[in-house]
């Protein structure tokens, strides 16, 4: 029973931990612009993140190699270094977006000036990372992030056209502007698959000291946790489709996202929605800062891990601190956090193959993996999603330009 309880707790944290600022921005904008039409793109993104999280979790557990161990071992120093630089730039941009998102949520809750709230956000993150053990970080932010479920309740209460919702899961483009539509396909897939999730997930498996006995938990967390997390993305898109699409409003602030909980559920919905956004985005910010530190430590061979003390893993500790400071510096310049989010998501898709390819290679290597190497199912999904991600990665920048960042 305790085992089932543990699995359930892990799944809950995965659900709450799935949504980040990229998902919030892209799902809301997609719903406002294309109603339910792009739900299918979320399904693709969620499928990809499930496949590769399960795989990199299994690789980490069985071979004790986290993502950037595999990257350097398989791609060598030179190309591995390129993958590292690309991954770190995307991590930084993502972190800046998440920090901005935290400050925006705090602003809606507390109403202080944005730049002061940015300082609070970064100090709060640093304190949480410093003071809380790894498992607690995951759980505190994951569980409170579950209050995002008010958007699911809100979506149902807004009485969407369920037939229309259903047809959104079948790819079709009913629009005059195909470039914008495709830009949003890229954005939704990119938001669901941001690279830090895979980096963090694989290192997390080592942080939690999973053994092959825990591979069931790995599978459950990835498959059930992220599928249910994907439901939150659907909910965000559907509430936006109900509230903004008929009025041709494009939601450009986090405040309009929160209306998705406010309109159907009133004051309490608004409060829960904002708290959900605050904790989900804060959790994502911590994951991203850690990802940056994990990647650097693994590539250069430093001691790493929150399961080590700061004195035992000092360069790793400095690395996440530097990530937080740099992320803060980007967003304190006054750039629009929502725009930073859009760029971070698009560039993260471009960097993604450099992570997925080595994971797929190592997961198939029986010398590392023995009997736990990829079976047929994992490979069919793995190759399918790799091809999808490659196509999306190639198309991302051209679509960004042609669609004028989705503005048409």
């Amino acid at each position, binding site marked *: 029973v305790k085992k089932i309880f543990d699995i359930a707790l892990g799944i809950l944290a995965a659900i709450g931990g799935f949504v980040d600022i990229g998902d919030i921005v892209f799902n809301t904008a997609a719903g406002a612009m294309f109603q339910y039409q792009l739900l299918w793109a979320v399904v693709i993104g969620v499928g990809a993140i499930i496949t590769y999280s399960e795989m990199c979790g299994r690789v980490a557990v069985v*071979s*004790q*190699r986290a993502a950037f*161990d595999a990257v*350097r*071992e398989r791609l*060598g*120093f*030179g*190309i*591995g*270094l*390129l993958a590292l630089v690309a991954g770190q730039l995307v991590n930084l941009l993502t972190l800046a977006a998440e920090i901005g998102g935290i400050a925006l949520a705090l602003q809606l809750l507390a109403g202080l000036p944005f730049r002061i709230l940015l300082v609070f956000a970064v100090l709060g993150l640093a304190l949480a990372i*410093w*003071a809380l053990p790894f498992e607690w970080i995951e759980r505190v932010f994951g569980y409170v992030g579950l209050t995002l479920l008010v958007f699911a309740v809100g979506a149902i209460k807004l009485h969407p056209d369920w037939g229309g919702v259903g047809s959104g899961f079948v790819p079709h483009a009913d629009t005059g502007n195909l470039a914008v539509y495709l830009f949003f396909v890229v954005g939704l897939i990119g938001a669901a698959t941001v690279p830090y999730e895979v980096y963090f997930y694989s290192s997390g498996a080592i942080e939690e000291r999973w053994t092959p006995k825990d591979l069931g938990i790995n599978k459950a967390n990835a498959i059930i946790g992220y599928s249910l997390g994907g439901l939150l993305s659907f909910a965000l898109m559907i509430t936006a489709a109900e509230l903004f699409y008929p009025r041709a409003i494009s939601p450009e602030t986090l405040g309009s996202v929160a209306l998705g909980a406010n309109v159907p559920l009133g004051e309490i919905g608004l409060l829960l929605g904002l708290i959900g956004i605050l904790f989900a985005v804060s959790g994502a910010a911590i994951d991203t800062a850690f990802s940056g530190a994990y990647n650097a*430590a693994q*590539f*250069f*061979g*430093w*001691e*790493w891990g929150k399961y080590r*003390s*700061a*004195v*035992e*893993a*000092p*360069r790793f*500790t*400095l690395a996440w601190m530097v990530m937080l400071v740099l992320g803060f510096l980007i967003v304190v310049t006054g750039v629009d956090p929502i725009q930073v989010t859009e760029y971070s998501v698009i560039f993260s898709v471009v960097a993604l193959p450099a992570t997925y390819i080595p994971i797929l290679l190592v997961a198939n290597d029986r*010398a590392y993996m023995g009997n736990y190497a990829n079976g047929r199912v994992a490979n069919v999904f793995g190759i399918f999603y790799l091809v999808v991600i490659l196509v999306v990665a190639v198309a991302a920048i051209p679509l960004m330009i042609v669609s004028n960042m989705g503005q048409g």
Partner: protein
Amino acid sequence: MSNPVDLALGILDHQLLDADGRRCGNVDDLELEGVRDGAPRAEMILVGAPVWRGRGRLGRLAAALAGGQTVRIPWGEVEKIDSGVRLKKPAHEYGLGRGDDRARKLVAWIPGANR
């Protein structure tokens, strides 16, 4: 350690772990003997930023930017090879982990740094 291993895929770029299980660098390069006889053996494990110079154009650039020193570890110091390359002695006896030693001074003063 006299068993045959795949030097390129099995050793190069792998994690080094010292006698206490502490991560202390990666195998940045290897010095081989007997390449001409057709029976190459690893003689030395090379660690440190200057070694990256031998790792392609980007390696040269990274080495130039990073500076630092080269550490040479005789192959006989390898205890065993599993998920990483495990060494027989603690890192400091080889001169490894110096970066962490320096960084430690920057974080050690913060309350709770030992937890």
